[in-house]
C-alpha cells in the first residue's frame, strides 16, 4: 500500500480538530520516569546511614563528584607517558594497575591490563556479557559500548564495526578482540602517530582519544606544523 503522504496531491484530509491542543510539550524530567525498587532502596539506605552518622551528605556528594571527575584524560596521560618513556611502557605492559598508580591514578581493586597496538596487531575491547569498562581510567563508558549491537558485533564481525567507526587498518593487520568477561579491565595502548616526534608529553596526550583507548579508533593525527 502506498504511503498516503506520498501521493503528490494537495492535502485535503479531513482531520478532526475538535480536541484541545496541549499548548506546549516538554521533555520529561528524570523524575518523571517510573522509579525502580532499587532507587527507593538506595534512598532509604542512604538516609538511614546519614541519620546514624555513618556517612554525611557532603561525603556522598564528594564521592559522586570524584567519580564524575574520572575520564579519558587519565588514560591519555598514561598513554602519552608510555610513548615518551620506554621504561614506563615496559612497566605498564607488565602491571597496568601499578603503572597507573605511578601517575597518581588510583585504580582500586581493579586489575588493569594494557594491550599494545603494533604494526601487526590492532586491539579492540568489548564486554559481551554486560558493560565492564575501565571506569577508573576512562570514566563513564559511551552509550554505544553498552549497546547489544556493539556487544554482539564486536566479537562477531569486528572489522565491519571498525569500518562503521571509520577506522581503516592496513592490509595484514590482525584484529584482536578482548572480551572483558571477568576480573580484568583493559586499556588499549595505541601506536604513536607518525609526525608526532617533536611534540611534548601534554601535546601527545591531546591526541589520545577515548575511542582510541577502547580500540575502535586510532589517535588523532598531529596538526601539520605551519609551512615555513
Amino acid at each position: 500500500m502506498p504511503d498516503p503522504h506520498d501521493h503528490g496531491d494537495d492535502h485535503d484530509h479531513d482531520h478532526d480538530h475538535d480536541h484541545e491542543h496541549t499548548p506546549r510539550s516538554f521533555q520529561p524530567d528524570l523524575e518523571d520516569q517510573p522509579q525502580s525498587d532499587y532507587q527507593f532502596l538506595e534512598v532509604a539506605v542512604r538516609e538511614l546511614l546519614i541519620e546514624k552518622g555513618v556517612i554525611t551528605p557532603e561525603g556522598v556528594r564528594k564521592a559522586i563528584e570524584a567519580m564524575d571527575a574520572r575520564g579519558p584524560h587519565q588514560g591519555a596521560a598514561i598513554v602519552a607517558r608510555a610513548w615518551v618513556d620506554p621504561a614506563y611502557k615496559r612497566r605498564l605492559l607488565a602491571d597496568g594497575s601499578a603503572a597507573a598508580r605511578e601517575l597518581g591514578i588510583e585504580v582500586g581493586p581493579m586489575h588493569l591490563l594494557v594491550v599494545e597496538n603494533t604494526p601487526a596487531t590492532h586491539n579492540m575491547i568489548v564486554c559481551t556479557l554486560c558493560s565492564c569498562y575501565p571506569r577508573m581510567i576512562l570514566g563513564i563508558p559511551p552509550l554505544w559500548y553498552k549497546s547489544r549491537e556493539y556487544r554482539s558485533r564486536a566479537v562477531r564481525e569486528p572489522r565491519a564495526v571498525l569500518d562503521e567507526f571509520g577506522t581503516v587498518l592496513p592490509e595484514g593487520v590482525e584484529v584482536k578482540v578482548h572480551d572483558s568477561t571477568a576480573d580484568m579491565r583493559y586499556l588499549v595502548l595505541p601506536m604513536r602517530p607518525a609526525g608526532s616526534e617533536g611534540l611534548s608529553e601534554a601535546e601527545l596526550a591531546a591526541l589520545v582519544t577515548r575511542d582510541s583507548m577502547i580500540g575502535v579508533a586510532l589517535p588523532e593525527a598531529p596538526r601539520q606544523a605551519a609551512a615555513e
Partner: protein
Amino acid sequence: MARFRPGERVAVLSADPPGHIRTPWYCRGKFGVVERLCGSFRNPESLAYGGDGEPKQPLYRVRFGQRALWPDYQGATIDTVEIEIYEHWLVPAREGADA
C-alpha cells in the same frame, strides 16, 4: 595451583548450568589456547547469589581463532578473540566436547 599453562590447548565446557555464568555462550564447546594466567579470583557463580566465592578459581585468558568461533567469519583468518575464562570451565583439548 593452576591446572593449565600458557600455550596449552584447551576446550571450553559445552555446559548449560542454571544461574549467573560468566562464560559467554559463543565460546562454549570451542577450542583455544591459554594466553596467560590472570591470577585467582572469587567465583562469580557463587558471588552472584550472596556466596563468598570461595574457593577462588584460577582465571585464564584464552585465545580463540575467529574461525574456531564462527566458521563463516568474514574477516582475516589471523583475527582472534581473547576471553577471560575460569578454570572450572576448561578441560585439556583432548577431553573437549567436540574432540
